[in-house]
């Protein structure tokens, strides 16, 4: 992987050769430093035009070969680009992929996509006056977008792993077990989801992290769906449940991402051909989503103990694991 010093040179060569000269790179900054990939933002000069772009680069995961986290879906680099391009063909709003890096580009794996203006921070989307109109229509937009994602042909993406609810419960259970950190509430939650995991559901392409915070939003609504790294083949209702997990409401009053109503999400999903939605089925995935996020918080909070990332932000997230656990117990109280 290139470091910051030779990245501008490599990018200029790449753009001049594949998009057109002069390929000058300006305003290069690193955006979010995710655990699984790096995102760079810059402007490229091609002819007389200035094109706002992002470079998505996968970051190798430093995990021991027996780490159960290796069983989480992981779509990166070329596969990520293929999925985003397929989503665009399916009518899903995504950043346009400009080019996929080739070995001779000398920039490692990854791809260039158009940089879309807009807000991604969930809390701002929930609170800012400028998104008032967007908030009113986003639940329906989510329903329509999800119906399109779930209509994508899973076989066109042979790199996707297949995980039904029971398999996913098992993966998270193994991650949880590897912590050796007794918390009876989490064990109770695992028993609950294991006993209720839906069987023989519809099989579809699942985004996996479809939620407020992974959308680029403008005043008119959702401009793009980001973060396809944990996409897989599974039960499509997983995406509807995850979108409603309280954590992703960012303090907003409404159940769908903090901005919208379940009825609008479901009506738009069904109308766009997503199929009939059973509320209890979605609520299983919302409850399991709470459990998954609780386990993920613990995972982030102790990755430094496994020789992984040691960061203030990650360790602070470790202390948030009781939030979704509390929400899980509240859901359980309402469902019985």
């Amino acid at each position, binding site marked *: 992987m290139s470091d910051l010093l030779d990245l501008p040179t490599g990018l200029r060569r790449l753009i001049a050769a594949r998009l057109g000269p002069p390929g000058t790179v300006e305003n290069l900054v690193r955006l979010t430093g995710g655990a699984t990939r790096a995102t760079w933002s810059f402007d490229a000069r091609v002819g007389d035009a200035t094109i706002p772009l992002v470079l998505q680069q996968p970051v190798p995961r430093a995990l021991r070969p027996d780490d159960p986290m290796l069983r989480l879906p992981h779509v990166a680099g070329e596969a990520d680009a293929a999925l985003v391009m397929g989503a665009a063909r399916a009518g899903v709003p995504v950043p346009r992929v400009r080019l996929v890096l080739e070995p001779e580009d000398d920039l490692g794996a990854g791809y260039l996509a158009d940089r879309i203006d807009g807000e991604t921070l969930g809390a701002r989307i929930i609170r800012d006056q400028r998104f008032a109109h967007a908030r009113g229509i986003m639940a329906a937009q989510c329903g329509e977008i999800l119906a399109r994602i779930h209509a994508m042909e899973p076989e066109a993406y042979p790199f996707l792993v297949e995980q039904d609810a029971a398999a996913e419960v098992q993966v998270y259970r193994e991650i949880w077990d590897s912590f050796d950190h*007794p*918390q*009876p*509430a*989490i*064990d*109770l939650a*695992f*028993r*609950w989801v294991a006993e209720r995991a839906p069987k023989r559901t519809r099989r579809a392409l699942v985004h996996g992290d479809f939620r407020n915070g992974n959308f680029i939003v403008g005043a008119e609504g959702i401009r793009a769906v980001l973060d396809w790294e944990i996409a897989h083949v599974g039960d499509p209702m997983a995406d509807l449940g995850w979108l409603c997990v309280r954590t992703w409401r960012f*303090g907003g*009053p*409404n*159940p769908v991402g903090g901005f919208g109503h379940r009825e609008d999400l479901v009506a738009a999903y069904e109308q766009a051909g997503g199929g009939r939605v059973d509320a209890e089925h979605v609520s299983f995935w919302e409850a399991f989503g709470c459990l998954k996020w609780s386990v993920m918080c613990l995972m982030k909070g102790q990755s430094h103990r496994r020789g992984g990332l040691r960061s*203030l*932000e990650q*360790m*602070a997230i470790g*202390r*948030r694991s*009781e*939030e979704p*656990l*509390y*929400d899980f*117990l*509240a859901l*359980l*109280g*309402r469902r019985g």
Partner: protein
Amino acid sequence: MPPSRPTALELLDVVREFLEGDVLPRLAADVRFQCRIAINVLATVRRELEFGAASWSRERARLAGLLGDADPDESLEALNRQLARQIREGAIDVDDPALLGHLRRTVEEALAINNPKWLESSREEGSA
């Protein structure tokens, strides 16, 4: 030796005041975000110092009650390990109101340290 002065809580308070009043306003946006996290972490540590011991002792008492024959000298972690094992092995009824009540209270007490706002906003929301 009596506890040293200033106390740990007083020290945390003054560090927090320093970060909020003197450091935060001078920082660029990306580091300011990190500094806010640091301030929140200090607040969590402060609440844990203040309420942790009492909260863990209540948890211990509830666990001993639930487990019945538990050794009174067992550590909190050992008691939790025992209850977790019973839940996993199906040796305890997961719908048992006493069990659920204990787990809810335990999670609530942890939130009172880690993020009390989570409890407040859920009360405001009612059943949402």
